[in-house]
């Protein structure tokens, strides 16, 4: 849970990623953005400086590690490309990401240096992470962009639940990219 103590970090992160100006702003749920601060979600510690990161990690330690955690992560290629993905499992979000990375199919292509983006718990958190993965892909330019190493969308454009996942991600993490599905 993001407590009041972490809310400024949450907002700081949002401002940072929204500098790109991609917020679609058309989503009615965005207006209720403060809801996100009471949910089981938190910023990825590796995106912050070390000092701040340690505070977030301390907060993360209160989680029930027997509960499944859902994460989004970023892999980096020396040529500047990124690969955006999601994973789930048990343990700390960082452990889940690293375990997934250890057997990741894109390692052989040179993708490395995994960075934890966001994480969440529970059924609703799972849906938020699905939306977040797609928003990350779109944030970096979408499929086919030279910066993006993904060849497949996180959520199919034909998936009727695409907009719902997008909205859930907005609620949990804030919006970083416009909706790109058909429905």
């Amino acid at each position, binding site marked *: 849970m993001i407590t009041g103590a972490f809310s400024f970090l949450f907002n700081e992160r949002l401002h940072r990623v929204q500098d790109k100006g991609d917020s679609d702003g058309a989503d009615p749920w965005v207006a209720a953005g403060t809801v996100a601060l009471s949910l089981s979600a938190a910023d990825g510690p590796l995106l912050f400086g070390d000092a701040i990161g340690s505070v977030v990690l301390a907060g993360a330690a209160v989680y029930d590690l027997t509960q499944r955690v859902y994460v989004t992560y970023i892999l980096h290629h020396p040529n500047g490309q990124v690969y955006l993905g999601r994973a789930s499992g048990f343990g700390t979000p960082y452990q889940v990401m690293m375990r997934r990375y250890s057997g990741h199919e894109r390692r052989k292509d040179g993708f490395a240096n995994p960075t934890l983006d966001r994480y969440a718990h529970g059924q609703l958190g799972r849906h938020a992470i699905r939306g977040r993965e797609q928003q990350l892909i779109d944030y970096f330019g979408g499929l086919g962009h030279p910066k993006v190493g993904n*060849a497949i969308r996180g959520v199919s454009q034909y998936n009727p639940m695409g907009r*719902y996942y997008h909205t859930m991600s907005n609620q949990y993490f804030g919006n970083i990219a416009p909706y790109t599905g058909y429905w």
Partner: protein
Amino acid sequence: MKRTSKSDEYLFLRDWILEITRFLYNIAVKENEELASYFLSEFTGQTEIAYNRRNLRGLKCIFNDINDDANDLDEINKNSLNEILNGKFGFGLEYFNGKTLSKIKSITKRGRIENVDEYRLVSERVERIYADDKKKEELDALNSLLADFESKHKPIND
């Protein structure tokens, strides 16, 4: 499971999705009432729309998603859900998990992923087994299929 017509398939997909959605809502509502209500209204609403429009692809997307959600439940809740599904449909989640595994085996035997739907199927399986040391051999084989498909698949928004 015996299906007699396309209409039966649409009806089955709708009813199956709605049954699981209601079950998951009762769990999600303990997390956050407002967002759980949103989840319920969106899943039921989009399912009804897809059903009324005879959008089989859309229904199958929701069907796969809701089954994945259900498979993430803890054992107690999964057993409770399976009881409900068995009572209403005569089979539970394992029936479709078995079908999915058979499909993945046939993809593995073929040695390549042929389309995005298969990619997502294999990818979801990898997600389920990546932390299981006993399944390392299967994981390596599936990873190889995924990497091969990604390297050959032209990125398109599908």
